[in-house]
């Protein structure tokens, strides 16, 4: 295993972590807004608030970790992606900023407003949409080189069916992952009404999420044949992923083992996400940038890896403590404790 592979594996793993925790977060915000709209907010509000409150800031760090790490391991990506992504990433930053700060303003600052709940719910859809565009750009065909440097062709990007299918995939995935997790969480909190509603949402979003994912593979065949061929070589990973999907839906349908159902969802997305990542290898940006020509020097790579291992030694026990105190603490989850400052 070369240093390049170690670097991209670690970063991809953290990006996967972000996809899962952020999906739960974004989806929760959307379901909260949607249930307010339907006049059913009383059912979901407490479960969602109790989950989100102590962890919202941690979610953001996964994303920061990824983009700081990619500049560290692959500095050349800062040049290509930095120049071309100014607009989409700026929009994502603004949405993330509004969402994060206003979450704190309402939860801790007592700023209560219905409009804000809707805004919060909608940012949860727009953020994955704007971030997922980066994956589309990485497929190539939207960036060209002129004498000044790389430029992004917005017209080609926004008229491509691939762009919109990836946007739709990101939305369905967010809602599906979130609903399955929250079903388990509500059930754990012994909140039957919320469990039933969230289980319904999970089942509703299951089929669209798998259809859009399949659709993208088909579209890649026309957009980037090289990538498509490599995806086909990894068919068994995608097949396993679909099997996990079927398992989740079965368990939800039978109202059984929600915790295991969520683990299956994580497994499903882990396999699909890594199969996608492996088939993307070695390109960071088709056809300009590979993990090899953009890699940092050996001294930096080694020191980053050492810091990463030391950092994990610090973080994993802390994360475990956080989960034990809030996510897996029955008293807290069931609302019997509220020791907020």
């Amino acid at each position, binding site marked *: 295993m070369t240093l390049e592979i170690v670097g991209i594996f670690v970063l991809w793993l953290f990006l996967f972590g972000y996809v899962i925790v952020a999906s739960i977060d974004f989806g929760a915000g959307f379901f909260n807004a949607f249930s307010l709209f339907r006049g059913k907010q009383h059912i979901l509000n407490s479960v969602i608030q109790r989950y989100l409150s102590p962890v919202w800031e941690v979610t953001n760090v996964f994303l920061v970790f990824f983009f700081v790490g990619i500049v560290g391991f692959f500095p050349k990506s800062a040049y290509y992606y930095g120049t071309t*992504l100014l607009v989409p990433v700026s929009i994502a930053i603004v949405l993330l900023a509004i969402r*994060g700060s206003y979450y704190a303003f309402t939860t801790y600052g007592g700023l209560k407003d219905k409009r804000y709940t809707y805004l919060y719910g909608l940012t949860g859809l727009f953020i994955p949409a704007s971030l997922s565009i980066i994956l589309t750009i990485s497929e190539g065909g939207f960036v060209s080189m002129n004498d000044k440097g790389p430029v992004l062709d917005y017209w080609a990007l926004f008229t491509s069916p691939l762009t919109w299918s990836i946007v739709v995939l990101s939305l369905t995935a967010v809602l599906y992952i979130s609903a399955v997790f929250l079903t388990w969480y509500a059930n754990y909190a012994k909140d039957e009404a919320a469990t039933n509603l969230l289980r319904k949402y999970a089942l509703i979003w299951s089929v669209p999420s798998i259809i859009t994912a399949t659709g993208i593979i088909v579209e890649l065949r026309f957009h980037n044949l090289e990538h498509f061929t490599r995806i086909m070589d990894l068919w068994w990973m995608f097949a396993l992923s679909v099997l996990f999907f079927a398992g989740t839906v079965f368990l939800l349908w039978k109202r059984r083992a929600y915790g295991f159902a969520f683990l299956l969802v994580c497994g499903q997305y882990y396999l699909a996400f890594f199969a996608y990542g492996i088939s993307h290898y070695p390109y960071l940006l088709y056809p300009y940038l590979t993990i090899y020509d953009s890699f940092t020097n050996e001294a930096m790579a080694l*020191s980053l890896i050492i810091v990463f291992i030391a950092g994990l030694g610090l973080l994993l026990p802390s994360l475990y403590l956080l989960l034990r105190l809030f996510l897996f603490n029955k008293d807290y989850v069931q609302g019997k404790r509220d020791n907020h400052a």
Partner: protein
Amino acid sequence: MGNEEAVFFSRVLTELTLSFHIIYATIGVGIPLMIMIAQWVGIKKNDEHYILLARRWARGFVITVAVGVVTGTAIGLQLSLLWPNFMELVGHIIALPLFMEVFAFFFEAIFLGIYLYTWDRFEDQRKHLLLLIPVALGASFSAVFITIVNSFMNTPQGFDIVDGQIVNISPVLAMFNPAMPTKVAHVLVTAYMASAFVLAAIGAFRLLKGSNHIYHKKAVFLTMKLGLIFAISTALIGDFAGKFLAEYQPEKLAAAEWHFETEEGAPLVLYGVLDEEEVKHAIRIPYALSILAYSNPFAEVTGLDQFADEDIPPLYIHYLFDAMVTIGMAMIGLSFIYLIGIWRKWTFIETNWFRWLIVLGGPISLIGIEVGWWFTEVGRQPWILRGIMRTHDAATTSGQVDKMLILFACLYLVLGVGSAVVLSRMFKKNTVEQELADRKIEKAGDSFDT
């Protein structure tokens, strides 16, 4: 060239983001330490007032930390979005502390969540206080790592350039560059200082607005005392920073001091205005610049005549430098008079006009932080990486930067107004008197030890 517009707007947007972020970042670094001290004093003296102080500060802190986190994310990404050439170059050399900062921040975020949601969960308050230590450490170390990157931009080292290629890279040597010790120390103590004075200002404001509760008097006393300690440390470290500049960035020192001709026994130019090449209305302290730069009144200090015009920073940094030093000195004076006044029982300490001065001290300290950063950033120009890469070569080639500037200006307006409204509502609705009554802890100490 031909990219002047993008360079200009990239600079304005970066300056805007940093100027906005630094307020929340400074508070974010300093307040956890203040909360820790208050809670510790409360436990030690068995005085519920200090515990409540810690608790109320913690509540306000969450709001500022949220804005600090999101604007920090913004500047983290803007570095790559606006300065892609710079990040591509320095990613090879100084990515390590940036990466470390993420872990420090991660650590802080996790324990802040735990700390906030475990009030009254422990029988022993000391256990709860323990949870705050990683928060304060994480916050301060975030500042340390980011400041290391900034000091690297001033005195880059840890690599060689052979035929335009970067070779012999040592990430650790790059981190421990000559600017690092003074810069890191300066950033940390000024953050503690400014946070203490901001909290003192809040306490003094409540006293002015009719509450004569001993709680606020304790708060003002504690924070002014801490503020004085950190303000004096700031002055000492500032002196070392001057000596560092004389040695490693003489053009920055010379521009800041309007020191045009290289000479021995150089005088210090205070205030004044620049008319063409002539300094007017300034106070000149003989030999003081030589003392500041080399601790020797007769030492030779390099002047601007030794540098090519295109390597000299803008001369207006003199105003920024003077404003920074004046604010630092004023805050030492104010907190010193206050403490002497408390000990000697001078009554004017309790008057309205003096309390207004303490209230002013909060925003003025933050202005001090702002001008200090403007001074160091503009003082490094025309370089983004001193001696290696010029700012105008580092910027993006994108033509959309002006629109992004408007977008972010609106964002910061929304966040600034939002956080101010939320903070003031939070504490107006739930006054100290109310909360103390709710908690039935009026029995706590009714005097404060001096």
